[in-house]
C-alpha cells in the first residue's frame, strides 16, 4: 500500500484496516500526531486529508490511498511555519501542549475554509478538540491572530 504523507510516498505493508494514526505513529515515527481517545472524541490525532481535517484514529489507512495526508510535521513549507504555528508561537496559549498538534491542524483547516472566523465559528469548528488544561480562550485568541497573519498576506 502506498501512502502519500507530507508529500513523501511511503510504502507500508500493513492491512488496509489499520488506522492512519497507528501507521503514522508506530510505522513512520510521525509522533507529532497524538493519541487521546481512539474514538474520534478528542481531536488529538487530527491530520489533513486533501486539506480537510480528519481524525486519524478513526480513519483507515486504506481509505487514504491516493490522497494527500499532511501531519503537524509537514505543516511548515520550506522551513516557514504555518501562520497558525506562528500565531501559537507568538501568543503562547498552551500549558502541557499535548493537544497542540490536533489544535493546530484543526485550526489550519478551519482557516482554509474561513480565513476570518468569528469566535462562534471558532468554537464550533474546534469543539471536537479537547484541551484538558483548559486553554480554550487562549487558543481562540491564537487562531484570531493566525487569521490576521493570513489575511495580511
Amino acid at each position: 500500500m502506498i501512502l502519500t504523507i507530507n508529500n513523501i510516498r511511503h510504502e507500508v505493508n500493513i492491512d488496509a484496516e489499520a488506522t492512519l494514526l497507528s501507521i503514522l505513529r508506530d510505522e513512520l515515527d510521525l509522533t507529532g500526531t497524538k493519541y487521546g481517545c481512539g474514538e474520534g472524541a478528542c481531536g488529538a490525532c487530527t491530520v489533513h486529508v486533501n486539506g480537510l481535517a480528519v481524525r486519524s484514529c478513526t480513519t483507515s489507512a486504506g481509505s487514504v490511498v491516493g490522497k494527500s495526508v499532511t501531519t503537524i510535521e509537514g505543516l511548515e513549507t520550506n522551513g516557514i511555519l504555518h501562520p497558525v504555528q506562528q500565531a501559537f508561537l507568538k501568543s503562547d496559549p498552551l500549558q502541557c501542549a499535548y493537544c497542540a498538534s490536533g489544535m493546530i491542524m484543526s485550526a489550519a483547516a478551519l482557516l482554509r475554509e474561513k480565513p476570518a472566523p468569528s469566535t462562534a465559528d471558532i468554537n464550533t469548528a474546534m469543539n471536537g478538540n479537547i484541551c484538558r488544561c483548559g486553554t480554550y480562550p487562549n487558543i481562540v485568541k491564537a487562531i484570531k491572530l493566525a487569521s490576521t497573519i493570513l489575511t495580511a498576506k
Partner: protein
Amino acid sequence: MNATENPLALPNIDRRQFFKLGGGLAVAIILQDVIAFAADPSGTILSPVPSGQVAAWIHIGEDNMVTVFTGKVEVGQNIRTSLTQQVAEELNVDVSSIKMVMGDTDLVPFDNGTYGSLTTPQMGTQLRHTAATARQALLDLAAKHFSSEVTSLKAAGGMVSDQKSGKKISFGALTKGQQILIPISKQIPLINPAEWKTAGKTTPKVNDRTFITGGHKYVSDMKMPDMLYAKILRPPVYQAKLLTVDLDAAKAMSGVTVIQDGTFIAVAAASLRNANSALLAIKATWESPDQPSKAQLFEYLVKNARETEPETSEIKQSLTASEQQHSDTYTIDYIAHVPLETRSALAQWIGDKLTVWTGTQRPFGVQQDLAAKFDIPKENVRVMVPDTGSGYGGKHSGEAALEAAHIAKETKRPVKLAWTRKEEFTWAYFRPAGVIKVKSGFKKDGAINAWKFENYNSGNAGLKPQYRIPNQQNNFHPSLTPLKQGSYRGLAATANAFARESHISDIARMIDMDQLEFRLKNLDDARLKAVLEAAAKSFGWHTKQKRKGCGYGIACDYVKGGYVATCAEVMVTEDNLVKIVRITEAFDCGAIVNPHHLEHQILGAIVQGLGGALFESVDFENGKILNPNLSDYRVPRFKDTPEITIVMVNRTDIAPSGAGEAPIVSVAPAIRNAILQATGTALRSLPLLPTGKLERS
C-alpha cells in the same frame, strides 16, 4: 534538539559524564574562606553532590551555559519557564542561556514530587538562593581574578565587569566549567520582586517551538532500537479474580512474547498492532464479588465511615441557642483527571540496572517503587520524566512504569507501555467522592456563631472555614471507597469549599443579606476580603443590571497561600437550560513570577473547575466503570467556556505561592450560588447539572 528535549539522546550517562559532555572536564571549584581551585583528576568525589551545595542545583559551563537541576517536573504548569526566569533573574543572565534538567533521578537532587502548589514557593526559593550564592561566588572569583574589590564588580549578561577598570570576564571563563562546590547561603540577599526584570515578566514557554511542530517527544512518543510494545490483560471489573486463562493462541502468534507471572499477564511484540491482536487472542474467565454501585454510593460512604470525633456538647448547645439555624447535606461524585496523555512508560534493563522514562509527578517515588518491586538498590534505578501531557494530581503514581519494567525484565528487551483511554479511566485513580453535612447557627444581623462541618471520605484539605465563627467543629471521617481514589488538583478543598460556600450563600439568603456583604461581614483576613472586592468590582456585582432569568453567585477561599474569589453569572431559561454567561475570578498568590503563565494556571483551573461543577461524574456499577471513554465522560470543550475575566493581584511584598490549585475551588460554588439567585433552587450535589438541565426544587 538538545539533551533535555530528547532524553534518549543521552542514554545511561551519569552525572559526571554529563558534565564532561556539557563542557570541559569536571573538576571542582571549592570556595571556602579563601578561594581555591581543587582539581580532581579521578573525578570520583564529584558525585553525588550534597544538596546543600550550589553544584547540586546549578552548573555554569565553560561555554557560559547555565544548567539547572531540579526534581520538579513539567506537566503543563510552565515551571520549566518560570523557574528558568527566577534563576535568570538572580544570576542576571538571559533566559536563553539557561537549560533546565528536570525530573531525572540520576542528575537532580532528591525531590518529593510536583504537587501541592509547592514548586513556586519551595523550588523557586531554593533556586533563587542557589543562584544568588552562585552570583556571589562568581563575583568573588572575579575579584580575585582582577585583584579588585567585590564592591566595584557587577554581574550582568553572563559577564562580570569591573566598574573601575572597565575589564570584563565571562561566567564561563571564571568557572572553567567546574562545579561550584560551595554551600548555598540564605544570607545573600535575593533580588526584591519589586525590582525583578526577568522574573515577573511574560516570557513564552521556553521550549515552545518543539511543541507546535510536533517535535517534542512525550514518553508515549518515544522509541528505542529493539523495543517491544506491551499490552496487559485487565480484569473486566474491580476486584476480579482470574479463574482460567488460555494463552495458547497468543503464544502461537509469531513475534509475540506472552508473560505470565501469577495473575499478571501481558503480551509484547515489535509492533503495537501485533501486541493488540495477541491480547485479543487471550481467553480468560474471572470471578468477582458484589460491589457497591453509584446509586448507593453516598449511603455507603456514610455507613462505612470512621467517626473521628462525636459532636461536642458545646457545639450542640451553641447550635440550639442560635437565633436561626440551617442544616444541609452536600454530595460530591468521583471525577477523573483525564490527562490528555495517558500513563506511559518506556523501560530498559542493562544488566541489573533499570532505566525508565515515564510521565509522573513523583520521579523519586517511582524510583523507590521500582527498586522495591525488583529488589534492587535505588541507585540502580534511573527514572526520567520528559515534559508530560499533564497530571492535575492524577500522576503521582507509577503504574505504567512498574508494568513496563516488569515486562522488560521478562523479555530482556526495552518495552514501551502506553495505557489506552479506557485503562486510564479504569485503572488510574479518581478524585474522591464525598458526603458533607453542615449545620450552622447565626443571628438575623448576619453574625455566624456556630458551625458544624463533617466531611465523609473526600478529605480534610481546606476543612476549616476562613469565617470568624466562635464555636466550630470541623471533622473529616475517612471511609471505605468503592473506587480507587487519590490526589486531585486542590484535593478536598474543592469539595469542602463547595459545601461551605453553598451553605454560606444559603444563610445570606435566609436573612435576606447580599452574598458579598455577608462574606465581608464575617471575614477578618484582609487579603481574602481584597480578592472578594476585586472580583466583585471587576464583575460589576453591584453595578451591572441583571436580565430576566439571570443570577449572580460568589464564592471565595484560601488554599495553600492563594486567596481566590469567583463571581459567576448564569442565565436559566424557562425550560430549565442553564448557561454560564461569565466568570470573573480574582487571585492573589503573592508576587507574580510570570503573569502570562499565572493567568494560564488560573484560566486552566477555572475551565477544569467548570467540568467538575457542571457535568463530570464517574458512573459505575458493581465494580465496572460505565463511562470509561471521552464520548461518555464529558469534559469541558470550547463551547462550554463562558466569558472569563481574571484579575491578578500582584503582591510584590509577599513571597510567591503556587497557583496550580487554589483557583479551582471557588468555581463550582459561585455557579451554584448564581443558580440559587436566579431560581431559588439550592443545589447540593456536584456535578450540578449532570443531565444538562436544572431540576428545580
